[in-house]
């Protein structure tokens, strides 16, 4: 199973629909300061189920929706999609390709959709788990956070290993 593509709409600085096709190996993202690279990382973290607003660099979930600029007014919804290739049927899903979408509205209601049908966070997470995706965990290393794992106390380091075991 691999991640084919990510689509962002209304998420932070991604105002119009943005499709990002991913390599099966290494996809690199470059650009000037403040252009939106880490915002893309926040989008991936968020669609994988992140709830800690600090890890999403937001104070509340409505901060994830484009809040406007000099020339554009704020949007009312943000959506992030992940399109997976499941041709090897790693996941218990019949289609060769499946789409997970998460949306959030200004009233802070957040919804998940699996292949277009509304789905609960639990079933999305268990779908991820069966594919080996365990929330954001340590598979996502945020900016300025790579050394964080060394600062963890021995008990915390053991807890990380318990999750891996």
């Amino acid at each position: 199973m691999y991640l084919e593509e990510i689509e962002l709409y209304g998420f932070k600085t991604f105002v119009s629909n943005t499709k990002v096709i991913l390599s099966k190996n290494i996809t690199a993202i470059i650009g000037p300061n403040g252009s939106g690279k880490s915002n893309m990382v926040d989008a991936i973290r968020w669609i994988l189920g992140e709830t800690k607003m600090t890890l999403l660099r937001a104070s509340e979930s409505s901060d994830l929706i484009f809040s406007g600029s000099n020339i554009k007014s704020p949007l009312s919804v943000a959506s992030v999609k992940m399109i997976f290739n499941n041709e090897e049927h790693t996941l218990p899903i019949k289609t060769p390709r499946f789409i997970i979408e998460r949306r959030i509205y200004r009233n802070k209601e957040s919804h998940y959709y699996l292949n277009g049908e509304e789905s609960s966070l639990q079933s999305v997470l268990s779908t991820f788990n069966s594919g080996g995706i365990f929330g954001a965990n340590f598979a996502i290393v945020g900016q300025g956070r790579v050394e964080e794992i060394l600062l963890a106390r021995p008990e915390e380091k053991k807890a990380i290993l318990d999750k891996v075991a």
Partner: protein
Amino acid sequence: IKSEFEKTLGEVEKNFAVFFKRMFMGGEASIEKLYDENGEVKGIELNVRLPGKRKQSLPLLSGGEKTITALAFLFALFKVKPSPFYVLDEVDAALDEDNVVRFCELLNEEAKTSQFIVITHNKETMQSANILYGVTMEEEGISKVVSMKFA
């Protein structure tokens, strides 16, 4: 008979030691178990010795040395509990040129079995990518993604 935890720890330690030695071209790394009064494992600590230097506690290492040690440990965790994809945001920021080259070799090796999405400002890391995107802000406050290299 080993517990699940003990088996996993052994696997992680083995990989941690290999990645560490590869990135530092020498030295040693291991994981130490800490026990409580009942003889139960209550914590783990990373022990490292850089080539030519004596064993040092982690806080005394340099910025780059900490990054490399952390990456060796993280990649060991990745190897033992694989995820289909990983996202690394500017993890090469503290590395000098030679260490970035070694980091890219590690990345290329692990990318044979997992997908990596890496954010970087570093030219060497960019060149390792199969697909390269540039994010810009032509319109104020709005991100635009441009494909710069396609596999």
